[in-house]
């Protein structure tokens, strides 16, 4: 009997710590989800933008990463933004503050097109 009580007493702090860990992890997940709405990634692979169409909230920063062996650019059709040439693994970011539809393309390979819809 005595022994079992002793185990329970010992176990209590472990359970408490586990609960803390779980709630901590939950809190971390929640903040990561929040970050995702303000910072979104577009990958350039095989001469295409992925995703080609992106819908985001105003204030979102979109980051393009060139994962091809060939340089690309990210240039909006209405000249709202224009990257320098991006070599392999280089990035370009732009923060969309105003709602609207922003068509963009690679000015080196104009068959590559994409769209960001800002709500």
């Amino acid at each position, binding site marked *: 009997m005595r022994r079992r009580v002793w185990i329970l007493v010992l176990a209590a702090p472990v359970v408490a710590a586990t609960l803390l860990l779980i709630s901590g992890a939950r809190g971390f997940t929640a903040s990561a989800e929040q970050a995702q709405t303000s910072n979104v990634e577009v990958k350039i692979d095989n001469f295409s933008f992925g995703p080609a169409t992106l819908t985001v909230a105003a204030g979102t920063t979109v980051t393009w990463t060139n994962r091809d062996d060939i340089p690309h650019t990210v240039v909006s059709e209405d000249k709202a933004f224009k990257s320098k040439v991006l070599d392999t693994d280089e990035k370009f970011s732009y923060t969309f503050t105003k709602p609207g539809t922003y068509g963009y393309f690679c000015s*080196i390979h104009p068959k590559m097109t994409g769209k960001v819809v800002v709500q």
Partner: protein
Amino acid sequence: MTKNVKDEILHDHNQDGIDRRGFLKCMAWAGTGALCVMQGGVLKSYSLSRLSDLGGSAAAAGELSFVQISDSHMGFNKPANPDVAGTLKAAVDKINALSKAPEFLLHTGDISHLSKPEEFDTVDQILKATGKEVFFVPGEHDVLNDDGAQFRERYGKGAKGAGWYSFEKKGVHFVGLVNVMNLKAGGLGTLGHEQLEWLEDDVKHLKSSTPIVVFAHIPLWAVYPEWGWGTDDSAQALAYLKKFGSVTVLNGHIHQIMQKVEGNVTFHTAASTAFPQPQPGKADSPGPMKVPAEQLRSVLGITDVNYVRGQHALAVVDSSLA
């Protein structure tokens, strides 16, 4: 030459010379050399191994010969070819070893990979070893970040607009065009209104018997629009060249040899000196094609062009760097 000679490839383009779809049947000779002679609308191609059979033929005794090189992409260092300076030097060795020295070189663009000054410097240094004058047109990789200001400063002095120009050599009229500027979303290469007007004026006063050579980076024919391999307003440019009996169009950009004949016009694309690209539609994208190291030089190359007075068209010989 008869058809049973193994190395001869004969294409009769007469039957479909006006059928636009007909020209999509083009040949790629990756890894081999070929001599092409066009007479009366019939294109004959011979593998370089049969050149001795041609003996004293017209192509072997041209009055003007020049070499086209393309797509040196100096600065590129990925696995498809980590040593583009080495393969450009191999191209120079090939040029210097030609039995008939060329009068000059044409470089059809993508001299550099990222438009960096040191990339252009390296190419200039390597090409110096040919001792020949080089005429350049820009590729899209040569006009990054500055709308081509550096390119024009280096290679386009005296040229018009974005860098287009013309010159005469031994009765042949050469036209260098720029189709890599102001590209539009979803579109192909573009010449633009100003350049087209200049071209119309440039060739207006020439006799129709004048042989014309047009060179530009992106193909002036629809090789594969899905990959951007064509020029939106090239038909307008070609319309200005209709009256001429012999027109040769030399392009780069697609890093492989292709040829097509349409009426009086022979279209030709050169191999790269840096890395090969896949055949149209044969890969997910037109990105660099990786081949085993020992095969690399067989898919890179130079193009030797021979003009013989009185012949209907120029003879084009492609040689690999292997």
